[in-house]
């Protein structure tokens, strides 16, 4: 539904706007940097040259789709919109299947495999996970961006996010420096849980996909039903 008065205002404003300056010439410098770094990686470490291209593609996808982990967890609460939240769930579904295949290929045929041999980020789960997630969640909503979102916005020209990145660098450095202390305090006593060890690969993947599927349906239902920030 359109409002005639907004249409009128738009037409009027469109005549006042100066034609946009093309920013295309600036593209030359990033493209040059891209090829220079690719050439450098290709001659030093081939793995990095692949990671470099994958990273660029992920960046372009996230910027164009406005994929934002902050919004995916904040918008359901703030405006009752779960479209990004469902996008994250779809991402997890794809990752579940993909990692399931990779991990099965790596250790599926070895009896009594050790968790260190499994590809992927498998870490102890415990109180440390909950506290860390809560702290990170508060921080990312205040900063208006998680790690990837902050980097995307710096690229778009948001100066405020540069301050966030500075905080990020300080925080990560401090965290890495004190990691031994935290590991002794919480992480060491927490258990590393790897589901396929208890129930086998296929049931573990199936259970995880079922849980994610149910969450997806619940999120869709919530989206239709809720509209928390009312006038």
């Amino acid at each position, binding site marked *: *539904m359109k409002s005639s*008065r907004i249409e009128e205002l738009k037409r009027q*404003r469109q005549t006042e*706007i100066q034609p946009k300056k093309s920013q295309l010439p600036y593209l030359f410098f990033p493209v040059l940097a891209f090829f220079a770094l690719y050439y450098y990686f290709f001659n030093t470490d081939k793995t990095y040259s692949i990671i470099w291209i994958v990273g660029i593609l992920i960046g372009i996808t996230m910027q164009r789709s406005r994929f934002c982990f902050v919004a995916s967890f904040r918008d359901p609460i*703030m405006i009752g*919109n779960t479209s990004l939240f469902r996008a994250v769930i779809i991402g997890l579904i794809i990752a579940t299947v993909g990692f399931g295949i990779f991990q099965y290929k790596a250790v599926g045929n070895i009896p009594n495999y050790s968790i260190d041999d499994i590809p992927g980020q498998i870490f102890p789960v415990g109180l440390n996970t909950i506290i860390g997630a809560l702290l990170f969640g508060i921080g990312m909503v205040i900063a*208006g961006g998680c790690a990837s979102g902050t980097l995307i916005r710096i690229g778009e020209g948001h100066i405020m996010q540069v301050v966030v990145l500075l905080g990020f660098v300080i925080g990560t450095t401090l965290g890495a420096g004190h990691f031994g202390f935290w590991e002794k305090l919480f992480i060491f006593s927490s258990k590393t849980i790897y589901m396929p060890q208890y129930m086998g690969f296929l049931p573990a993947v199936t259970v995880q996909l079922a849980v994610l599927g149910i969450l997806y349906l619940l999120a869709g239902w919530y989206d239709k039903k809720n509209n928390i920030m009312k006038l």
Partner: protein
Amino acid sequence: MAKHELDCMFEACPIPLLKALKKLNTMEIGEILIMRTDHNCSIVNVVEWAKKQGHYIDYIELGEGQWEIYIEKAK
């Protein structure tokens, strides 16, 4: 009919939406809110929110990375 202007330039993500909500609260039905923002996420979340609330909404791009959002309070 009264037009209200709201400057949300350089504001971080949810602030434009919260400012719009507060401003709309003080406005009469039929009045138009003109929001200016440089945050492309606002285009998504303000527009979706306003549509869900049942207000008229549209936007134009003023320059590279600068938008003006128009909201007409409908109820």
